[in-house]
């Protein structure tokens, strides 16, 4: 941790306020060029032309990408809630997703419940688990005034502890839900499993519900007020603890539901959430600046691009290559756009 007061004398000038000739700052001209509306509309037009020109391929990529990565959208929405409203990058959110998968599997196989019924207790229990991590780790850390970087490292440590803890308890083998094959229907000529469609519908419904809740409901207003200015919110009679717990609970529920969908679509394993974490982070950092709607569309776009790359016949791209390309692409986008959290609480 940096030493207090070592180089802190004088005003904390913003980078924009001080631009000496040899500031050493990164190049900004090309950023402003890319930020222009003409460039953005041109890029959108190019994408649309490419979609129309390759429609038979794009059709499959859109259907497969949108439906297979719906759980990613759900998980990203939960992560975005935490990030945008508390300012915390919680690496251990990966294990919240994993926990949702395991809790869903446990409820499903122990009580023999239908998968859709299983979703409710899985989401609720994961929400409680998320609140537990807040009280056990993040609240005490907050009270000790731990710095931003240190908080990320703490969450990284918690992530490792939970991941291997889950592996210790549940073992190394992959586990599966006990569900009958729900069948599939054809969408734009592509067969899609019903669980995947349900995941997409859930992601859409939860996104809309959260947007309404955060923007219109009384509690949502309190949440935004707390994110904007904690002391002012407190002075207005808002209970910060209750609101913060609510945020963690909602985030946990979204992560838990995502985990259950991942689990039923593939398998349940200790690394499930961690395998998705980088994409959750990418989607939230890129799409999060546009609120939950932005997260929703960034998540779906990620799935479509991944599918497109995998399906391109001349590229012969393996899923691993497709992921590598998408990660690199997102990193460049982040560089171009920057990632500063300008408006806390804007969801």
């Amino acid at each position, binding site marked *: *941790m*940096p*030493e207090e007061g*070592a*180089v*802190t004398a*004088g*005003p*904390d*000038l913003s*980078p924009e*306020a001080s631009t*000496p000739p*040899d*500031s*050493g*700052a*990164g190049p900004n001209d090309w950023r402003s060029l890319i930020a222009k509306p003409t460039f953005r509309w041109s890029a959108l037009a190019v994408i649309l032309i490419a979609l129309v020109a390759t429609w038979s391929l794009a059709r499959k990529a859109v259907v497969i990408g949108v439906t297979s990565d719906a759980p990613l959208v759900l998980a990203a929405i939960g992560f975005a809630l935490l*990030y945008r409203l508390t300012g915390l*990058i919680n*690496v251990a959110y990966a294990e919240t997703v994993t926990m949702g998968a395991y809790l869903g599997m446990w409820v499903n196989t122990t009580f023999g419940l239908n998968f859709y019924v299983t979703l409710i207790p899985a989401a609720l229990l994961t929400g409680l688990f998320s609140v537990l991590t807040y009280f056990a*780790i993040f609240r005490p*850390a907050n009270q*000790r005034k*731990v710095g931003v*970087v*240190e908080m*990320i*490292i*703490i969450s*990284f*440590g*918690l*992530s*490792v*502890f939970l*991941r*291997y*803890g889950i592996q*210790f308890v549940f073992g*190394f083998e992959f586990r599966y839900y006990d569900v009958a094959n729900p069948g599939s229907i054809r969408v734009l000529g592509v067969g899609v499993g019903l669980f995947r469609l349900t995941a997409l519908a859930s992601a859409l419904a939860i996104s809309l519900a959260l947007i309404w809740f955060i923007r219109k409901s009384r509690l949502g207003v309190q949440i935004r007020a707390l994110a904007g200015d904690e002391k002012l919110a407190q002075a207005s009679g808002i209970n910060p603890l209750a609101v913060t717990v609510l945020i963690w609970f909602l985030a946990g529920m979204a992560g838990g539901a995502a985990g259950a969908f991942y689990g039923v679509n593939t398998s349940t394993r200790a690394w499930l959430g961690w395998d998705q974490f*980088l994409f959750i*982070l*990418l989607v939230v*950092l890129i799409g999060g600046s546009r609120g939950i709607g932005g997260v929703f569309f960034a998540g779906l776009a990620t799935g479509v691009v991944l599918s497109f790359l995998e399906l391109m016949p001349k590229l012969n791209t*393996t899923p*691993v*290559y497709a*992921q*590598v390309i998408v*990660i*690199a692409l997102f*990193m*460049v986008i*982040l*560089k171009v756009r*920057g*990632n*500063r*959290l300008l408006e806390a609480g804007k969801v």
Partner: protein
Amino acid sequence: MNLDWLTQYVVTVVILIITTVGLALLLHLQMGLAGIANFGIVGFYGVGMYAFGILLVHVPWPDGWGMVVPILLSMVFATMVAGLAGLLVGWLIADLDPDGILLGTLGFAAIVYGLSQTNRQWTGGAEGMGTTSFPYKIGTQKADTLLWLGITAVVVGLILYYVIRVHKSPYGRLLIAAGQNEALARSLGKPTFRTKMVMFATGSAVMGLLGAMYGVMLHYIRPVELGIGVTLAAMVGLVVGGQTKAWGAVVGVVLVGVLFELVFMVWLPFPSEWRRQSLPVVREMLYGATLILVLMTRPLGILGRMRRDKTVRRPANG
């Protein structure tokens, strides 16, 4: 002197600990001084390991060159490739917030891991590839490994010397300024972006060299060597020792490494059936728990606060 306790396995673990000390020292420069929390250490380490292996195995070296020259040239190549990767990643993340840095460095590590599993003709895919044995033969396998331990220790000693020198130099003070209040440092005309980027690239290059050296020790490199455990061990050691101190990396990694890798994994008399699956899992849990506990209770680590009186020149009138 009876050295029976120093088994081949223990020597291998000691090499791993010393390599981790080197990684933690470089992380100290990046995170402790410049404020760049590099979660992708294993990516640069992996780039070095694989660049070394690929060049060494796939280039038809002249027979007259023996083993030493190809290995040395491959190590130089590995260092350069990791440095170039560090320059690129540094350019991407040097002006981003901690969350962007997390994404950039984790993303880079994921890319390296992904590429190590593909390109089968170059990397051997998931099964991995054989590289080389030690470039000498002085006696038994243990003696050869001990000599490699000595060579690794010398390289890490040089890194420690460099880091201590950085602490006392104007360059070190610039890094500290960039890490603690970048806006102020820039307002004073300091090239913070370039400084951080170049430091990141240099550190990443040396991480690549350490990866290449560990690749020689392994003789056979596989993607499984590029797990999150490498980053975790370096980060936990640095945090435990004290991330703002050069010696923090040494003290922390040696302490944690000896406790978790030797005492817990080798010397405590656990049932043998636990050693294959349960103990490695519990060890990783201990790493995670240690990171949390230290940052919550003693965030400056064992060695504590940075000694600014030694790094900042005293005013002339006292």
